[in-house]
């Protein structure tokens, strides 16, 4: 019978690989998404406090970040173990905050500027002195909407 012809095509047909780039791309995108998108590499360690009255920050484009904590291990030899402020990718002093806020505000669209928020990611062991200084600097720079970044406590 012709249907069961053993002499038919013996060789396995070649796999069509033209879609492989697409697959690779989708996997690539997937990993791009799940790895938390952090624009900055953290140079300070912090653990934010836990609260009950916290709110979600809806629009990420409106939020700028100020990190306060101890330098991570690789920077300890250079920066010591005292509490440090990080803006963007580098350590900074309190008086650099005004400039930072100005730059962040300039990068926003005109409509969003009044709604700018500054999220303070502060380690819970930090002393209030540096926090107060940062808050005063933010006030001077007219960045008045602030968020004490915190996790949810049950």
């Amino acid at each position, binding site marked *: 019978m012709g249907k069961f012809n053993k002499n038919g095509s013996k060789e396995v047909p070649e796999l069509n690989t033209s879609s492989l780039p697409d697959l690779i791309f989708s996997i690539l995108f*997937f990993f791009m*998404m799940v790895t938390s998108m952090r624009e900055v590499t953290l140079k300070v360690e912090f653990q934010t406090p836990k*609260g009950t009255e916290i709110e979600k*920050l809806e629009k990420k484009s409106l*939020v700028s970040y100020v990190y306060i904590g101890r330098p991570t291990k690789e920077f300890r030899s250079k920066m010591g173990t005292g509490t440090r402020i990080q803006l963007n990718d580098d350590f900074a002093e309190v008086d650099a905050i005004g400039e930072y806020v100005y730059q962040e505000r300039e990068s926003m669209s005109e409509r969003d500027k009044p709604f700018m928020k500054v999220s303070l990611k*502060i380690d819970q062991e930090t002393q*209030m002195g540096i926090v107060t200084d940062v808050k005063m600097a933010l006030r001077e720079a007219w960045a008045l*909407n602030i968020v004490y*970044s*915190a996790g949810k406590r049950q």
Partner: protein
Amino acid sequence: MAKKKRKVPGLNGSSLADISFILLIFFLITTSMDTDTGLVRRLPNPPDPNQQEEDVKVKGRNVLVVSVNMNNDIMYYYGDESKRVTVNDVKPEDLRAVAKEFIANPENKANMPEFHPADPPLPILGAYPVTKNHIISVQTDRSTSYDVYFQIQNELMAAYNELRDELAREKFGRYYRHLDPESDEALAIRGVYPMKISEAEPKKYGGN
């Protein structure tokens, strides 16, 4: 029988691009990029350098001062000199009830904020008596731990949120947090319990 070399037709791969796009969009939507959460606060306007430094006189009965020292011990006081209530060694959790009583002043005590009819009148509630001059001031030492400060702020926020919820339940039968923030109901509730936590540098509160 004729030996025929059969050709397998190549797979049509043109739709694979669509499939991968669907996958991509699916993951785009489902993966939650770590959203930031926190206590949302507003700082006061910066002090005007041209303006003369004038001490804002606040009546003693309108101020609740929560003070934390370098050892993270918390104390609070309120009321005028003669009727002052001072409590030492409190826990952050205790502040919620204290703040609630202070803000609402349900028994109209003389050492807690006085009532004024709302001016301009609130939507729906009208000239509702409001303790509009009250201020809660949190004073810290430079060595106070941020965690303690944060817990205090959290409890004070909780006090306001509970008061607002209670009033909204009583007046409108709904929780404040379920109201549309721009609605008249929410405006009225916020008018009765405006959030007045002083973020400024500690100032001297004097006068009567």
